[in-house]
């Protein structure tokens, strides 16, 4: 295994990795190609017969997150998008400021949308207050934003990162089958890359004061599992998560089945940069040492 701090240092010195802000990371050169190839392979893994592919907007209304109870669950991560205030005087003061970049935050209009904290929220919002006569599976991808303060680390924990998700909406049995199949397929996919993945029960870092209760309940009911890929002999990284929401989003967004009962949902999410890091930890930063990527996913895709 290669120490991840050494990998990051080599890529940075080579100019293949850079940050425009803490946790906002770019890749180019061989690392950029690796990232693109992994995204293609995982995209093929989650696509397939019966899976709708959606191109979702890059931001979401705050009201949709409110409906998803986001502000009591994970407000600590939220990143909003704001444009400049349309007031001409404010813009003139900004344009003539000694440093417009530093003065910018004083010239913003109130934010009405958030950068995506997870791509699947768009699926529930788009299907809100609808009847789903049959189960559906939807694949979505996008850049997600979660500000984790001091914990940010390149590739491992980004303020911005690339998420590929597939969502199942249907009966509890539909979701259970979807998640158990997904756990196996993701583990097999990691194995095809030569990465030894392990599945572990997990919980989300819910915000206080009810955070501990939510996390305990999530763990007790085994509603969240993660695929951990090794970074060294003792440390793994959650490169995919398997989440059973039960009827939470069905109820929150008024999505019901043909019987009028709120549907169950589950999602499987892949964090692409973490797959890049796990690959680099296994094989090092020099591309000539990398094995050929076995693209089993491209021939056996579909959840």
């Amino acid at each position, binding site marked *: 295994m290669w120490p991840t701090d050494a990998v990051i240092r080599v890529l940075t010195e080579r100019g293949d990795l850079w940050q425009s802000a803490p946790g906002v990371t770019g890749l180019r050169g061989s690392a950029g190609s690796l990232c693109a190839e992994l995204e293609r392979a995982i995209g093929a893994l989650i696509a397939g017969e019966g899976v709708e592919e959606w191109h979702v907007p890059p931001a979401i209304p705050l009201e949709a997150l409110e409906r998803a109870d986001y502000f009591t669950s994970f407000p600590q991560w939220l990143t909003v998008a704001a444009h400049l205030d349309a007031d001409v005087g404010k813009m003139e003061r900004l344009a003539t400021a000694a440093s417009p970049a530093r003065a910018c935050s004083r010239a913003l209009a109130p934010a009405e949308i958030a950068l995506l904290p997870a791509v699947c929220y768009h699926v529930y919002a788009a299907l809100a207050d609808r009847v789903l006569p049959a189960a559906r599976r939807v694949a979505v991808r996008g850049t997600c934003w979660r500000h984790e303060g001091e914990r940010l680390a390149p590739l491992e924990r980004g303020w911005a990162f690339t998420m590929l998700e597939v969502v199942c909406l249907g009966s509890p049995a539909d979701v259970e089958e979807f998640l158990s199949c997904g756990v196996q397929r993701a583990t097999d996919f990691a194995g095809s890359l030569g990465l030894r993945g392990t599945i572990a029960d997990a919980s989300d870092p*819910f915000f206080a004061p*009810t955070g*501990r*209760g*939510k996390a*305990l*309940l999530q*763990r*007790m*009911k*085994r509603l969240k599992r993660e695929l951990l890929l090794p970074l060294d002999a003792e440390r793994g990284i959650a490169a995919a998560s398997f989440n059973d929401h039960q009827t939470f989003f069905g109820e929150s967004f008024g999505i019901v089945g043909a019987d009028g009962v709120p549907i169950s949902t589950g999602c499987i999410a892949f964090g692409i940069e973490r797959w890049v890091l796990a690959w680099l930890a296994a094989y090092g930063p020099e591309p000539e040492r990398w094995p050929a990527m076995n693209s089993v996913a491209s021939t056996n895709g579909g959840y």
Partner: protein
Amino acid sequence: MRTIVDRERFIYELVAWLERRLAPPGMTITPTTVLFEGRLIDSVRILDLIAWVERATGRQIPDSRIVMDNFRTAKRIADVFLEEAGNVAD
């Protein structure tokens, strides 16, 4: 609240508390009622339940012991946590 050492007393008081705190009108909770079916337990009530058991046994419950199987029913809670606390009176 004093530590409870008698198993039957523990179950009796736990069931009474669960009925007061959790049960919707018309529902009866027994020592073998499955607590995690439906919506009896939510993220606030699970913390209240853990706190009740900790007070009743006089011992803190580590997160590793907070698993579904140990909290399945009032009877199961008594079996697991009274036993671990060493409080069981024969």
